[in-house]
């Protein structure tokens, strides 16, 4: 790890003041679980690290069923799992957090860091950059693409979004608050992620001089929510495919649905195709399967990751069935 200067300001304002206006020079640290490893690997080489550890105003969870949920940036995954409001009103959110394994990771990792963690892509983590380009061409389509994207992979990026919380939060219409030198702004999480078009761009729209301070989740309004992840092993690892659903039901009929896939595209992947297959229908095993099929109808797997198409399809189906059955 290269040497860096370190600061631990006490307020959001002071923290923002310490940030730089371009990427790379300064990194923000919350739990550090991703950043410290990335620095050891030389994937990021900041000259300065601004720790949020002492910004007490970011350590909170407020709200409930009626007014929605507000999660401070430093809320840990463990604290989210223990939040009574989350358990009662947003089971899909708790299921997603439960997929983040190992008590160490849950106690250290924060909700904001979970959303901002960098992709796990082999090429990125080994220093080839987010787009894994060499001589102006991505190495991934002809390379090791076992874990790469099956959707949204027409280039230039082939990595998959690593966040476990983003799909369900997008399905719930969550927003994030960003604080920068010119004050605060709110961004819908569905518009927060992007596919970088050049190597210097990051995979989200937050600016280098901004801090993600809060996640706002609208009232659940009796929606049925669920997350279903498919993983290679039960321990600490990222899922191979995941689906998050939020359903407004009228009896057994789907009035309105949100279906968002995770770990299959460079961004969390909303599926209007799956939603269309569900809306106005009775939710049964058959319609759930049809929604799964629709969700992957436009998948374009690479040479080694065709298996992920089936996993994503099944994840959608099982998330839907989990949502209506209400099992934990």
């Amino acid at each position, binding site marked *: 790890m290269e040497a860096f200067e370190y600061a631990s300001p006490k307020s959001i304002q*002071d923290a923002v003041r310490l940030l730089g206006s371009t990427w*790379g020079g300064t990194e923000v640290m919350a739990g550090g679980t991703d950043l410290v490893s990335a620095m050891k690997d030389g994937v990021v080489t900041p000259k300065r690290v601004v720790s949020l550890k002492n910004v007490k105003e970011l350590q909170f969870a407020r709200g409930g069923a009626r007014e929605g949920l507000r999660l401070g940036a430093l809320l840990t995954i463990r604290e989210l799992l223990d939040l009574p409001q989350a358990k009662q009103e947003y089971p899909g959110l708790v299921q997603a957090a439960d997929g983040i394994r190992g008590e160490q990771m849950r106690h250290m990792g924060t909700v904001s860091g979970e959303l901002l963690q960098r992709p796990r892509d082999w090429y990125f983590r080994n220093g080839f950059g987010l787009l894994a380009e060499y001589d102006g061409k991505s190495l991934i389509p002809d390379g090791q693409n076992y874990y790469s994207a099956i959707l949204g992979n027409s280039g230039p990026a082939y990595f998959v979004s690593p966040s476990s919380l983003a799909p369900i939060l997008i399905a719930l219409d969550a927003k994030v608050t960003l604080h920068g030198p010119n004050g605060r702004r709110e961004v819908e999480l569905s518009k927060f992620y992007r596919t970088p078009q050049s190597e210097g761009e990051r995979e989200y729209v937050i600016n280098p001089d901004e801090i993600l301070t809060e996640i706002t989740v609208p009232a659940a309004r009796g929606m049925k929510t669920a997350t279903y992840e498919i993983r290679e092993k039960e321990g600490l690892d990222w899922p191979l495919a995941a689906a998050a659903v939020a359903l407004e039901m009228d009896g057994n009929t789907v009035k309105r649905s949100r279906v968002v896939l995770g770990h299959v595209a460079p961004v969390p992947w909303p599926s209007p195709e799956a939603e269309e297959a569900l809306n106005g229908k009775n939710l049964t095993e058959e319609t759930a399967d049809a929604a799964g099929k629709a969700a992957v109808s436009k998948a374009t797997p690479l040479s080694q990751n065709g298996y992920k198409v089936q996993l994503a399809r099944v994840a959608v189906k099982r998330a839907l069935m989990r949502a209506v059955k209400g099992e934990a």
Partner: protein
Amino acid sequence: MSRKKDRPQKAGSSEKSSLTRRDFLKGAGVTVSGSMLVGSTIASAASPGPEAGFVGPGPVPVTLRVNGKVHKLNLEPRVTLLDALRDRLNITGSKKVCDRATCGACTVMMDRKPVYACTVLAIEAEGHNITTIEGLAADGKLTPVMEAFVKHDAQQCGFCTPGFVMACTAYLERDHNPTEEEISKNLGGNICRCGTYRGVRHAVLEAAGMKGGANGNM
């Protein structure tokens, strides 16, 4: 071969050289006042200075409270808690294996919560009570978790054991009544390459005072 050497030069370089001369000069200014601040904070203990600017990249005073004992060190901000414990304080029970927040061999407790010491910066551990494996049986008497590990043969080569014992201890302090399934899932942050997971599960069940542990026939 280090991974860095294998990297094509262009990779990452777009993110690298973004510190302008002006930034640098500004930084140099804050660094001086910053290190003075840290100096004065240490004297007044736990909470870091008001209006902290940047400190480092050279060594700065860091005070660590490990197993009840206070240690004053000079560390670069990049030094991890694990390296500070092992290389500076000679407290070597916590092991360095993956060094990437994955294998759990470095697990210690910070304010009784389990953390990967390899991924906590030592400077961030300031103000917290750190407990290592050496601090668990300080009086020479094994803890219930340790006794259960021995009884159920929850170790083979033993290298991952301190991390497992720390993780299991912290887990049982939080959750007194886990099922076997919960144990597997929630203790997923530790890896044993000898494959002693069955013994570990039984040990945790026994330490939690559950039936399954007592009946576990290893």
